[in-house]
């Protein structure tokens, strides 16, 4: 890690309200924490983490936001088409769609039909969660493995 970057990080943490901040790049782990009771406590009980720098700061939401984003991206799940065919959101032309954006689905909930050569393939969800996005247009052709739905897993 670049020394200048490290200095900038320390400065950033110093000037903000962060109590503790850690970042990892390859094998190198950097933990910057404030010289408070919390930090001391943490060090005592985490003997394997050897922070190269230890600087006083207070807390800031940067780290938390990043963590949240990470969690969010691993929670997103794509349902893909198992066959080549035509994507239908409803069982019949005049029927209501199986699901809408925002709907909660569980394992086994029918999401759509993909038709190929009069094979009507019902696609069930294999996860529980919330429909975030519908990625294909009704009554249009879809390819094998084309993403159809984005689900935020529970």
């Amino acid at each position, binding site marked *: 890690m670049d020394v200048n970057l490290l200095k900038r990080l320390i400065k950033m943490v110093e000037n903000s309200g962060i109590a503790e901040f850690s970042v990892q790049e390859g094998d190198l782990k950097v933990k910057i924490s404030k010289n408070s009771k919390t930090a001391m406590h943490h060090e005592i009980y985490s003997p394997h983490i050897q922070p190269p720098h230890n600087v006083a700061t207070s807390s800031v939401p940067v780290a938390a936001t990043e963590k949240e984003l990470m969690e969010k991206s691993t929670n997103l799940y794509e*349902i*893909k088409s*198992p*066959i*080549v*065919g*035509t994507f*239908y959101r409803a*069982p*019949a*032309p005049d*029927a209501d769609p199986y699901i809408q954006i925002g709907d909660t689905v569980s*394992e*086994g909930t029918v999401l759509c039909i993909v*038709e*190929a*050569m*009069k*094979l*009507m*393939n*019902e*696609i*069930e*969800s*294999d*996860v529980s969660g919330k429909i975030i996005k519908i990625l294909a247009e009704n*009554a249009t*052709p879809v390819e094998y*493995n084309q993403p159809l739905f984005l689900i935020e897993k529970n």
Partner: protein
Amino acid sequence: MFIIEDFDIKLDTDYVGRNFFYFDEIDSTNSFLISSKDITENGSLVLAEYQLKGRGRRQRDWVSVKEQSLLFSILLNKEPEILEPNLLNLTASLSVAQAIENMHQLDVELKWPNDVLVKKKKIAGILLESVSQGNTLEKVVVGVGINVNQPNFKGKYQIPPTSIKIETKRNVNREKLLSEVLNIFEENMGKLISNKNIILHDWRARCKMIGEKIKIIDNETERFGIFDDINEKGFLLFRTPDKTETIHFGDVSLR
């Protein structure tokens, strides 16, 4: 009345139709097998005398009259049978055509993807339904409706219907016909698995549309071209002046 003993004595299969369910009345034999969590034996068969909600592609009605037709669905949930589900369409329609021809000496044609016709009239229809969880195909249900002993048909149809009785002027033994269809279907499944080209060849030989001008309708759009051939997946190769496209959906009719 369907006499199961008469059917059973003629059935010569290992798995197709061995686990047999009979209903006087049911919503739909396909729906029953698709939604059933208890029936898991590969080749299980549901036969019903009457369907309250019989249907075809995109929920079009399939009309049935009690005890005059053969309405049944076969469950397939074992690999490699379900690895190429689209070819099951061709295999099923071919088997129905061969069985009707063997037993009743009718000239039976096939219409892409899976209608069974005699003199351009529909004598049998097939609707495949499958369930997949995420990317994995769990099971395929082959739904078959054969017009057997109907003396006539009332109402409006997309393709005019006929029955074996109308064509042969004779009453048909449904038990024997069903066992013949299943025997041939299982035999053809074996061919599909060992060498799918046999099925593709036999299917092509019965499809009079290949090489003809056809009309394709999908979502109310009509297009004209030549039915060039089917490819190794069973999809239709549609030739227009500027290109050849692979068609895997829609309604197809002779121009």
